[in-house]
């Protein structure tokens, strides 16, 4: 009796996707600063804990021609978003959807490439699965500011270090942060980022070589 070679997990997944009639996840243009840390994919949701991180994630698809929508955040800093690389002409803001935030988010997922949602304090599992089904069907990317159950990856900022500001002199110029990407149960990936650097560009921070000092 011959045994057929066991299909790999990826093949099985692709076959299930095919049978369910949904498009396989496609990679989405991602800001080069996230190379090696995170690759955005259609139909996925990402939770971030900082507004500028959400802007940096939006910047990749937005510069690539995608339309972006921001739901539930009237405090979205437009100038910072523009500086991060978000095209404001292709950005739609729904500052206060009130009770209808779920309908508004679902309607925007239908037509936009990226939807940023300020996650409400309480969200039911049913609503989450409805939104993720819509995301997969429409091939959009969801970025949630605040915690979101069952998201594909969680990004958080750590060890923010500002440069340019002293005690009573100077002004804020750049920020060096550590970004942690937690994807399911996989090991946490971390990377050093300038968010932004002194030239207002978001980029990876290279490891500066350790300065050796002669001691004898």
């Amino acid at each position: 009796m011959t045994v057929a070679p066991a299909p790999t997990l990826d093949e099985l997944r692709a076959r299930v996707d095919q049978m369910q009639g949904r498009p396989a996840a496609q990679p989405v243009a991602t800001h080069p600063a996230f190379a090696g840390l995170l690759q955005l994919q259609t139909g996925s949701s990402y939770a971030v804990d900082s507004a500028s991180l959400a802007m940096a994630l939006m910047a990749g698809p937005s510069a690539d021609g995608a339309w972006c929508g921001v739901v539930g955040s009237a405090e979205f800093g437009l100038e910072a978003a523009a500086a991060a690389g978000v095209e404001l002409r292709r950005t739609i803001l729904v500052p206060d959807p009130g009770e209808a935030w779920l309908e508004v988010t679902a309607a925007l997922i239908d037509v936009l490439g990226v939807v940023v949602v300020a996650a409400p304090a309480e969200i039911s599992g049913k609503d989450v699965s409805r939104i993720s089904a819509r995301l997969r069907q429409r091939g959009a990317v969801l970025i949630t500011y605040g915690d979101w159950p069952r998201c594909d990856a969680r990004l958080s900022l750590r060890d923010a270090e500002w440069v340019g500001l002293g005690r009573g002199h100077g002004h804020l110029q750049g920020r060096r942060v550590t970004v942690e990407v937690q994807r399911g149960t996989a090991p946490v990936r971390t990377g050093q980022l300038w968010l932004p650097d002194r030239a207002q560009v978001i980029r990876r921070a290279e490891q500066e070589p350790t300065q050796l000092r002669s001691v004898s």
Partner: protein
Amino acid sequence: MVLWAPDWPIVAVESSASTPAAVLHKGHVLACSQAARAEGVRRGMRRRDAQSRCPGLALHDYNPDADARAFETVLTAIEELSPGVAPLRPGLCAINVPARFYGGEAEAAAVIAERLVRLGVWDVRAGIADGLFAAEQAARRALAQDSLVVPPGGSAQFLRDLPVDALDDESIVGLLRRMGLLTLGDFAALAPADVHTRFGTHGELLHRMARGLNPQPISRRQVPPEFEATLMLEPPLDLAEQIAFSVRTTAEKFVTDLAGHGLVCTTVLIEVDTDGSLATSRRWMHPRWFGPTDLVDRVRWQLSVDGVIRAPVDAVRLIPEVTEPLGDHADSLFGGGPDERVERGVARVQSIVGHEAVVSVSVQGGRGPAERQLLAPWGERPVAARAVGLPWPGSLPPPAPATVYLEPQQAMVVGAEGQAIGVTGRGMVTGEPARFRAAAGQDWQPVASWAGPWPVDDQWWDEVAARRIARFQVVGVDGSAYLMIVEGGSWWTEARYD
């Protein structure tokens, strides 16, 4: 018949008639309310002159889109009474007089005026005459909520004594005055051939208007055709599956009727009657458009909810709420335009949360981060109050804060001994900040680094709007950075660099 609502821009901004208000366009008064007129404010007056005549004047910016939108409700209301409304401009529209139905021209005008007053348009005047121009002039001379009827064939008589200014064409009116022709009667008395020789085709058109002839027929709005589809069930049915099966032909007819007019339905209202009264009504939206099977599904879903069908169903109605041209939805040869798709999607969001709740964004000039945000309702052109390219002394260099609070949050900043920190009149800080709290509910934390004050003396020439503030950047030991302002000794958090 011409219906005229005076000062429509004022009515559209919904200020009450008793308070003086004016709408400005390019620094000049475009329209003013009755109360403002009583104080001496006139059309065309400069902003400062108008304010000096009437210090309590409430000023609004001219927004033609909002005017037209507000007038749309009036047109719809008139259309319910008499079809074929021709909108001339916001505040002015013409219809054929439905005199026979209401028992007379004045009576018809009274019915329409009553309907509009119920809608909240208090001041509406009707003018009835043979021609459009004469009717408009009659409307302008009617009393509020009343009508002025020019008898048939009497237009020339009526127009004869009016001043030439009624023609509303500055260049020709000025010329006629200088020629000594002060009334429309004088102008009408000229021979048409002479008028054509001297004033050209446009002048001839005005001459025909002055003689009471009707030079241009009005172009009426088409009443939208009826697309509602009804299924009468005889005998009544009470199983959702049975009803869904029966509704299929109705749904097909509904879709074909729309397609015959080049339309597709994207939002449908499904109403179900039991025992001759409305049992359930629900609005369904479709991301693309409704086909017959989609409609049948929606009917089934609506009826499958427990407790909806308590008695046998005897009618199902499909009412199209939103229809869109078929061409917008057709797949084009080289792929559909994504932007149109986005526009339709956003229009649907606007139908959920309201027109103003969806905004398009850009950046404008200003000193504070909140002033630099520019939000405009989606579909309207954003008008920047301040140019972004100017230097704006006092504004902070980049990076810009990622979170800009709508309302500044009350903050506390103290020195090492817990003493309050402030800014002197000369713009010096009174001590070194040691600990701070960014908002009322947050924890205190030590200051890692700070800078400031950057004083801003904003609009010192305006007593009400003048502000003297000083900005600080404060970074806490946990790496959170804030933009704070000091105003009159108290600290506020304006924005956060998060």
